[in-house]
């Protein structure tokens, strides 16, 4: 399961981040294995999404969200 599968308001724990060109960016921004993540809301057209992580809100596209594996 990945972050893009989360529904609005749901939370999960990040299990793994796939090796993509933006893995460093995601990790710098606090997306780390073991971290709790909550889907705050989606943009009106379904993409991008806004998540709550490490005590703040972060925007990313569903494409990026798919590289973040989660466990509920």
């Amino acid at each position, binding site marked *: 399961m990945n972050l893009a599968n989360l529904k609005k308001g749901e939370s999960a724990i990040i299990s793994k981040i796939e090796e*993509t*060109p*933006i*893995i*460093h*960016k*995601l*990790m*710098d*921004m*606090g997306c*780390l*294995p073991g971290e709790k993540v909550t889907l705050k*809301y989606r*943009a*009106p*057209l*379904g*993409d*991008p999404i*806004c998540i709550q992580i*490490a*005590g*703040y*809100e*972060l*925007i*990313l*596209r569903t*494409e*990026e969200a798919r590289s973040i594996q989660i466990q509920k």
Partner: protein
Amino acid sequence: MQEVTIEHNVSTIAIVGNPNSGKSTLFNRLTGLRQKTGNYPGITVDKKTGIIKLHNGKKVRVIDLPGTYSVYPRSKDEKIVLDILADDNSEFFPDLVIVTVDASNLKRNLLLLTQVKDMGLNAICALNMVDIAEKKGIKIDVVELEKELGVPVYPLNSEIGKGINPLLEGISKYQPVNNSAYSFIPAISEETIGSILSRFKKRNGYFAALYLNQTETIGGLSEEDRQFLRDIKVSSNSHRGLQNAEVLDRYRYIDRVIEKVETRHGESRRIRFSAKLDLVFTHRIFGYATFLGILFIIFQAIFSWAEAPMDWIDRGFAFFSGWIKLTFPEGHFVDMIAEGIIPGLGGIAIFIPQIALLFAFIGVLEESGYMARVVFLMDKLMKPFGLSGKSVVPLISGVACAIPAVMATRNIENWKERIITIMVTPLMTCSARLPIYIILISLVVPNTTLFGVLNLQGLALLGFYLLGFIGVLAVSIIFKMLIHSTSKSFLVMEMPIFKMPRWRNIFMMMINKSKTFVYEAGKIIMAVSLILWVLASFGPKNDMMQADEVVSAQLPGKTIDDKEYRSALSAYKLEHSYAAILGKTIEPVIKPLGFDWKIGIALITSFAAREVFVSTIATIYSVGEDAGNSLTIKEKMAAEVNPDTGEKIYTPAVAFSLLVFYAFSMQCMSTLAVVYRETKSIKWPLIQLGYMSVLAYVASFLTYTIVSAF
């Protein structure tokens, strides 16, 4: 009394920090008006420097580095941070680094701080927005944090009032801490670390990791240095996963620190209020409606509020130019000043009100956190066109002026999206097109009102704004197909909570951006205005010598003291100038568009800047030097007939053809110059000039042919 220079005397301070961590607020607070914006040598990243006056009277240079989340760069702006901090030969290398840390988001902000500290730099922490953290229910034990991090910590609230004095005191009394406790030790063999450190004469083990991770991008290295690092990577294979391991390690360390220093309670009303605002601002209907409403207010303001000051500037320069001509004896030098240099300067200064206003609005939208919502709302809409949500800001700015708009593309990380945004931004209807649109529309579109509210001329004007925007989308799609890029587009950005903008920051931004515009664009506009003045004022000797004779034969009894005579004389001179020769040369080319050689002159002179069109037309039809108002120009244009056919020159077909031509053509030297600076390549401005000229020509030809048929 001679002051004793102490070894650890601080002379250069750098401020680094996450975006939205109050970095600019602190910089503005520390330096006040003693700041300036320039460029780092060779690259176009804004360099903000200023002077701090310490309590002991000492003055210290301070550099505001671009906001970044980590020393590992991902955009042009972020790269400069590593370049300066890692290169102790750099003239900007700081003796002391102030790291701004958002107290309401300690975890993510401390990453950068630990990196800066591990680089062996003297660091102090400006713990910012303590008040907002408290509203979020977060309390931080400053004494404990200081102990854990091993750097001095100075708490500040979001307004940075009270805390500033202890911080200044701390800077003047700063003593380097000999702190060998690293928060991260790279997992590289001792041997590899040793060979890297001895080659680069660094004492600090973290540099080995930095050099291995950033072999190709880090500044201050020669090609041999880079090859040396590449060889090490191949032989040791130790760099793989190094950067990920580092970030994980650091966050583990940060988690331990936070556990000791932070206590959390419930959120306050204000934070919940920001969340409620987001329900509106990101709503599927209200979100877009609010965005459109805000755009509408900005356009209104740019056009109506800027009108009066622009008028004063216009009149001021015209008055000054007239005064010079009256006061000093006649001659080419006085003419050059009065007709070349002063109008050239005026042509630059007239845009200052709009640029300042536009940046004030953009500043408010950015500072308040609204811009992130715009990116969020627009990203999916822009993606099919090869653009990103971040392209929206430059495109909006393009309505005032393409120059700051092109500069605003810097925070688009993806190269392809950035290039496309730069390429299409000049198609947005900038303010320089407005005078041309207004005069031509009023010439051929009746001033009638439909259904009691819709003014036909206003509708036509709106139509041309739309035409520009449709051009943006269409051309973007073409570039999207033509440009191949291996770098993948992504969007990962912080959604900051809503904050009240700090007016001091907005004010400083207005001043700094206007200054950048005047100095950067000003140089080119000046140079080209001078060239055009020469072209328009001089011509083959014989024709020019006869000017007086011909004009006095046409107007018997009038002398140089009559206004009518002077207008006729300047019209005659322009008609026989080199510019006119050029205009006649290009006439066969522009004839299919419905233009004659007089319009050709205006096309040539307005190549430097579109708004020159109106003043050239005024001169050609000898409206006269002090009749600057558009009514007279309009009347002259309406009365102008073709000497061969006896028909009117400005038929609807010609006027619409001209309108469409100006909508698409790249008649702006300054924009081309800025595109050159931003892309660091002559290729992109040439492509831009080429495609826009072709587009303008074809569209104009079609318009002329179709409208003529009716």
